[in-house]
């Protein structure tokens, strides 16, 4: 029996497989296809202090082996989550992590405080990298100082495991990663989406209502892998790898690059059962390579 469990700060995962915020709903939408308790955990959709309607339709565009989205953090607000969603999730035997967003530091803090009060939520993922909201979001995540400020403020207010989701739309992601590590983050997750654009050449119009949006899917994997590799060498806190992970092989690649856990995102749209399949692949891989623990894979790239 191989050991697949990993630790992210104080967070114990039975295996490294998580889901990316905004691609797995509140988990329940996928319960017909995946035994949620089989996952290391899942990260529920971006939650803000107050309800948000998000951006106008169209919010998505297909690109070569990728997609753009411009949802803009549509959600009913943290209180609605606490009252209506949390009760349906609290008895699951897996880690339910809330992705927390905000337009200003005060909102981030207030939202994180409300989530902290929910016993069965062991961690939050702080989204300082959403490219689809006018204020806040990515603005915080592309400068080390503003990134550190929001993380420091939330750190004071949030005692449990604090994962900070980083933007890839920067010159040097290691600089941002070190800044948030210094500000008290327990872990960094990367990458959030790359800012992209799609055009209808016949209509001569942008496809998204917001003109630009966040790119995800297999197409971004090489960039994500590179950034995870760079950041894993730059910080001491565990790294959660995200970006185009579609197969078990992809997951192994991110672990080898230095990720202690991974998030499956867009692939959930192609195959809603994919997360369970990736959990199985990792176990089989360890057996096939005579490894006793997934720890032997993390950062084990031979260079």
């Amino acid at each position, binding site marked *: 029996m191989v050991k697949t469990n990993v630790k992210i700060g104080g967070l114990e995962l039975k295996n490294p497989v998580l889901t990316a915020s*905004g*691609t797995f709903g509140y988990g329940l939408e996928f319960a*017909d296809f995946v035994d949620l308790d089989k996952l290391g955990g899942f990260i529920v*959709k971006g939650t803000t202090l107050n309800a948000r309607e998000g951006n106008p*339709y169209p919010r*998505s565009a297909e690109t070569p082996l990728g*997609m753009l*989205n411009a949802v803009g953090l549509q959600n009913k607000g943290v209180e609605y989550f606490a009252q209506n969603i949390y009760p349906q999730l609290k008895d699951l035997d897996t880690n339910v992590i809330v992705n927390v967003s905000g337009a200003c530091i005060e909102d981030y803090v207030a939202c994180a405080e409300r989530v902290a009060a929910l016993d069965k939520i062991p961690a939050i993922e702080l989204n300082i990298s959403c490219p689809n909201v006018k204020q806040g979001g990515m603005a915080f995540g592309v400068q080390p100082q503003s990134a550190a400020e929001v993380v420091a403020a939330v750190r004071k207010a949030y005692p449990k495991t604090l994962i900070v989701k980083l933007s890839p739309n920067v010159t040097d992601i290691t600089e941002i990663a070190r800044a948030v590590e210094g500000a008290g983050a327990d872990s960094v997750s990367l990458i959030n989406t790359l800012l992209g654009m799609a055009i209808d050449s016949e209509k001569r119009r942008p496809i998204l209502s917001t003109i630009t949006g966040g790119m995800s899917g297999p197409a971004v994997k090489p960039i994500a892998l590179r950034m995870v590799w760079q950041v894993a060498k730059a910080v001491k806190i565990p790294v959660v790898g995200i970006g185009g992970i579609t197969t078990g092989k992809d997951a192994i690649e991110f672990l080898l690059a230095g990720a202690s856990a991974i998030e499956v995102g*867009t692939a959930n749209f192609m195959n809603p059962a994919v997360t369970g399949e990736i959990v199985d692949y990792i176990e089989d891989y360890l057996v096939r390579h005579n490894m006793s623990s997934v720890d032997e894979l993390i950062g084990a790239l031979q260079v």
Partner: protein
Amino acid sequence: MKKYLADLTIIEVQKLNASCVLLTMTDDKALPQCRPGQFAELRVDETPTVMLRRPISIHSFDASKNEIGFLVQVVGDGTRWLASLAKGDKVNVLLPLGNGFTLPEDNGARLLLVGGGVGSAPLYGLAQELVKRGNDFAILIGARSEKDLYRRTEFEALGRVEYTTEDGSLGEKGYVTNHSLLNEKFDYIYTCGPKPMMMAVAKYAREKGIPCEASLENKMACGLGACLCCVEDTTEGHRCVCTDGPVFSIEELKW
């Protein structure tokens, strides 16, 4: 309602015209019960350029034969790939999705089904159900031209069907909303087709005070209410066409 993810087997491919095929599929296991107006997400990522599943409305569903039919109009690489499949091929299908049409309680009610082009696809399954239930209904289908009207014999086998074509090649010339059938009295309207057509039908229904349901076709990713990409701006804000819809009462829509 429980959703299924299965590799269905194509048992028949019927080319309806150059750009439209009817795929009939089955499975070794019993297909889940599907309601008229529901849809499925068909996996197409064997194609080099397309990654996301294609949402296709359920055209026909026969529990006794364990068969389900999808009318596929080729619009891009994904649907082109679907249309290129042959008998015996398998397609990974996620179903049933969405709410489906509301079936009338009052069996005395007179129902009108208004479809546009390939958008009439789900109305076939609805009409089949209405026949079973003994409802009184008429079908009105509009298209650009006669060649854009699909499955006429099959529709006509279910009841009265009227047509409009923009070029007058079949039925009355013009748009569905100009058809003389609309002079008759109806208690409820179901519509599916191009948005401009459905908006015109909705306008007509509002004027006459007839309750009306429209089936929307917004661009989707997950089909499960997770990605929030396919939202329609309703009277209650942004709602997912894939889970809150695809069928909405026009009272909920900001048309």
